């Protein structure tokens, strides 16, 4: 197998030199970061995760009544939550997260929300991703704008979206790429060279082709780690296996990019299926199956990243939470505050960070939702500053415009 640089040299000559400038910036990437090279994985949980089910506050005296038959029991009881700090537990499907908490690699955040206060998934996701308090205020995402302010040398495509297209959070002026495994044969190099010429007058396609070739080159260098997995036989009967298979290729690809010393430092991918309006389930059921899939994906990400896990932070966030009470169809409707997870070898974990507002009727937001006491952007700022070294000024003005009054949450990362 040819190495990436051999491929690039070849592609560069075939494509009239286009890729020389594209890829040269890789050369100094490792040296400039002084040995430690932080990696960030952002997982967007689309559909609004029920934070009160994922991280049940079993110690709150109002919790059990609100949740009725779906309430999770205290740790120790059959089907009970996994122990965290004596007040909050973890959903029992989140085994790996539980281990990570004990290993002080998981930080749980609760009662947090983006600045969005309505209940539309699609506007909620827009705010979650655009980094302003208003939907559709910007056509770029906070993560992309942060990439422009990564200190030190880094590759031209410092971010990669796992999937065919780039979600809003990663769109913007900084060059990023996207990648997903393919069942089709790789394009012929002569054809690619001709297309590079043909796209010369088309800024969008020229850019996308260059980004796509760069991602394919990294994938090719990583070799076997990023080939599509064979379908797992007979897994459909075992929900955990079936749902982790959904993410398996994505996770392998994310790790394949991030573990390279001169590859992208930031990866993003989506998960879905969190919109549990009916028959959400409790310790088992629909949501439990989804959580088990996410948990297995995170476990496999840790395994695939190997030594790079120590420099990694994974942030899993969602657009808003769900109603505090179970609804009339054993599910939950759109709500406000929810939980988020920050996990990885670089995380100062083993804690739950929450200014708990309580679940009594008068403590609920608009009488129905968990009230937000923590602005998600403070967490995002804390990660971008503490982990990736993005400057306060960039965070206050560009990444999260006009947010100077909102301080980054300090101490999220290991010193």
């Amino acid at each position, binding site marked *: 197998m040819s190495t990436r640089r051999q491929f690039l040299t070849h592609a560069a000559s075939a494509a009239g030199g286009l890729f020389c400038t594209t890829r040269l910036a890789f050369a100094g990437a490792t040296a400039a970061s002084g040995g430690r090279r932080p990696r960030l994985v952002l997982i967007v949980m*689309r559909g609004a995760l029920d934070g009160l089910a994922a991280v049940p506050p079993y110690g709150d005296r109002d919790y059990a009544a609100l949740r*009725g*038959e779906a309430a999770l029991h205290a740790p120790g009881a059959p089907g009970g939550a996994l122990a965290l700090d004596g007040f909050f537990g973890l959903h029992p499907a989140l085994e790996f997260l539980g281990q990570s908490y004990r290993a002080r690699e998981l930080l749980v955040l609760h009662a947090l929300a983006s600045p969005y206060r*309505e*209940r*539309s*998934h*699609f506007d909620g996701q827009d705010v979650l991703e655009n980094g302003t308090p208003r*939907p559709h205020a910007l*056509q770029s995402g906070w993560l992309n704008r942060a990439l422009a302010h990564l200190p030190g040398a880094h590759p031209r495509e410092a971010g990669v*979206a796992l*999937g*065919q*297209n*780039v979600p*809003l959070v990663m769109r913007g002026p900084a060059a990023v*790429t*996207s*990648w*997903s495994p*393919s*069942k*089709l*044969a*790789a*394009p*012929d190099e*002569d*054809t*690619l060279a*001709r*297309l590079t010429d*043909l*796209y*010369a*007058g*088309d800024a*969008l*396609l020229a850019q*996308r*082709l260059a*980004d*796509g*070739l760069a*991602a*394919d080159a990294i994938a090719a260098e990583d070799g076997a780690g990023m080939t599509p997995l064979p379908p797992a036989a007979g897994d*459909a*009967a075992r929900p955990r296996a079936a749902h982790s298979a959904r993410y398996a290729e994505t996770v392998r690809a994310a790790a394949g990019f991030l573990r390279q010393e001169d590859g992208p430092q930031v990866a993003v991918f989506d998960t*879905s*299926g969190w*919109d549990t*309006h*009916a028959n959400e389930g409790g310790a088992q059921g629909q949501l439990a199956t989804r959580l088990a899939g996410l948990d297995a994906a995170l476990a496999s990400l840790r395994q695939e990243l190997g030594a790079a896990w120590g420099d990694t932070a994974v942030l899993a966030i969602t657009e808003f939470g769900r109603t505090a009470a179970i*609804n*009339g*169809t054993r*599910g939950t*409707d*759109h709500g406000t505050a929810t939980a988020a997870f920050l996990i990885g070898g670089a995380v100062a974990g083993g804690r739950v960070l929450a200014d708990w507002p309580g679940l009594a009727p008068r403590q609920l937001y*608009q009488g129905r939702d968990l009230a937000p006491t923590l602005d998600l952007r403070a967490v995002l700022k804390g990660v971008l500053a503490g982990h990736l070294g993005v400057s306060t000024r960039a965070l206050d003005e560009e990444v999260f415009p006009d947010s100077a009054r909102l301080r980054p949450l300090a101490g999220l990362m290991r010193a």
Partner: protein
Amino acid sequence: MSEPFTSAIAANRFGLGARPGELAAIGGGGRDWLRAQLAGPPPQLAAAGLRSCTDILAAALELRRELQAARKADAQGVAADPLQKLPQFLRPIYASEVTARLQQAVTSERPFLERLTQFWANHFAVSIDKQFLAGLAGSFEREAIRPHVLGNFADLLLAAETHPAMLLYLDNYLSVGPHAPAALRAARRDAQRRIGINENLAREILELHTLGVGGGYTQADVTTFAAVLSGWSIGGEGGRFRGGVPGQFLFRPELHEPGTKVVLGTRYRDDGFGQGVAVLRDLARARATAQFVATKLARHFIADEPPAAAVARLADAFHSSGGDLPRVYHALLDAREAWDSGLAKYKSPCDYVLSAYRGLGLPADAAHAPLAPFELLGQRTWSPGSPAGWPDRSADWDGAAALMKRIQWAQALGERLGGRCDAVALAPELLGANLGAATRGALAHAASAAQAVTLLLAAPEFMRR
């Protein structure tokens, strides 16, 4: 541009891509060609063997009941085999529906209507990642959308919201008014087990199907509207949902929240099913709905960020005609902005695949893996994953990996067709006035006939419409 209403724009932007000979037949009368397609009843899918939603759903519910009974009988839990029975039942139905839709799109002489059908099916999106929907999405489009594409928006709206596929997808079939007879009975029996409202359908009707997210409704409107819609259900579900014709829409008075209700400032007296119909009729006539629908249509046919003046004209046509859809389509065709630029829209994967099928005359039958291209290129049919439907801007589809997949697919097609296809001659037939000198030159100098096909399908002019 020498001719104002070019055949290339008519066939590629408003249609599903030109077939060889089509541009010549259209000539300079692109707009007239499209107007003519709006005359006459909308075409129905011709494929034999497609079953009604009621038929499919009744069979699926019966199958599920058998599986549940088997599971209860076998306390050890049944092996993987019976669990696979439901997907095994639904998957061939999905495949035949997608195939029929593809064949219709590829062979249609009224491709504008096919595009409009797909537009509205996406406006009222259901997604196959929810149980049963893989078997129902096709019949939903055929039964609730297709017959109303040339009708009134209010009828389209009512057909979509009362279709079992929608009531399942957005959970309304389970929703029970808190003071409905069934809820009171249940509370007397077991105070712990709550049954009540599910607000999913009510919210998405307001946000995604009618007024739009800024349309002026509040959380209270959502909750009250959900109470209005309680009882809109499906027959034959078993358990507390026994009764009615299995798999068919059923209004269940015992689940309906009684009483007069106020939605968006208007009082609706309770006459059961009619209460929800009355709210839907008013929503269909609302100014915000006209604006929301006009914006989406203009985004689909004119530009990602459509000019406000064009949107306003479409909204006026919608509002002043009381939601008469052909009047809105005529206003769209009359919009000069839609004809200004030949390639304003980046094709979605579905657009891309259909235009390749039409342009190359690819076989669309079951023997030629008709589902595969949509999956490979990232738009598995009827699987937007959310009730918002597929997005409709360039940035949603123009990712680097997505482009690489299109190039790979174009290469595979080139290799398959090889010397049987003369891309140099075909290019002006498919792209007409949109074909530029760079692409013409690249095709002329291609190393092989196969490569020329690949270059044609990967050309900037073929990526857009």
